[in-house]
């Protein structure tokens, strides 16, 4: 830490220059900076991207299955009817589940591709915006230096 004399001198310099700055404060600077922050804050959605990926992962963990069919019945001969019906429809159910699983796999693949493409595009757009805002900041700094109070 600098010593007390240096601190006092620094404080006086700051006070004088802060006064000069207030007199020549560029119009709209504060608004421009705040707007820049709003834009940056608005386009960062990593949390949302993560939740999309979580939703896709959860979808991938689910599989279709043929439900267990109750074989007993309170009606006389009901169990035999249940067994007969079950045997008849079971193969159709199994075929249906295979089709549903295949469809789910395709859907999941499409969603994953879509999410990856969105993320890639977002990164690219973010990079381009960062480059543009960097150039803008350079220009602003050059302008600030040229209009700096003495």
């Amino acid at each position, binding site marked *: *830490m*600098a010593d007390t004399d240096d*601190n006092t001198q*620094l*404080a006086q310099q*700051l*006070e004088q*220059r*802060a006064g000069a*700055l*207030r007199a020549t*404060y560029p119009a709209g*600077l*504060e608004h421009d*900076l*705040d707007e*820049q*922050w709003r834009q*940056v*804050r608005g386009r*960062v*959605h*990593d*949390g949302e991207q993560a939740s999309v990926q979580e939703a896709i992962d959860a979808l991938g963990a689910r599989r279709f299955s043929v439900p267990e069919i109750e074989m007993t019945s309170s009606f006389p001969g009901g169990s035999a009817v249940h067994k007969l019906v079950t045997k008849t429809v079971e193969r159709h159910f199994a075929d249906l589940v295979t089709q549903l699983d295949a469809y789910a796999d395709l859907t999941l693949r499409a969603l994953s591709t879509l999410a990856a493409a969105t993320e890639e595009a977002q990164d690219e757009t*973010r990079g381009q915006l*960062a480059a543009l*805002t*960097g150039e*803008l*900041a*350079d220009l602003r*700094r050059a302008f*600030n*230096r040229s209009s*700096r*109070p003495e």
Partner: protein
Amino acid sequence: MTVHEPTAKNLRERVDGPVVVWDLADADQMARALEVADVINTWLRSDLFTVVMAHEPLDQSRADALREFASTLNLTRAWIVPAAEAGQREAFAERALVWLSELPPFPLASIAEAVDSLVGQRLAM
């Protein structure tokens, strides 16, 4: 409390000039502190180093947004700390010339007011 040595070493060896620490409650206030740092580095003191620290840990997206904002401002003399450990706070406290812990929340203090406040704090030392 033990000082976090990597932070202290970094401050000792990599950071020159006066250090201002902002210890603030949310990302919007931290963004305003970055704006103040930008104005001060541009017009007042190009050697001032600013630490902008979250009082409570920030979530990742807000921390990323602040880093991106600092990058858009070309702020090379600012250190954003989204989740400070106690030892890091100690290291910053040791080095800080000025420690500011609040900006009025609604509305956030204007940049000019914040610069005045900083100068006021500095004068009070």
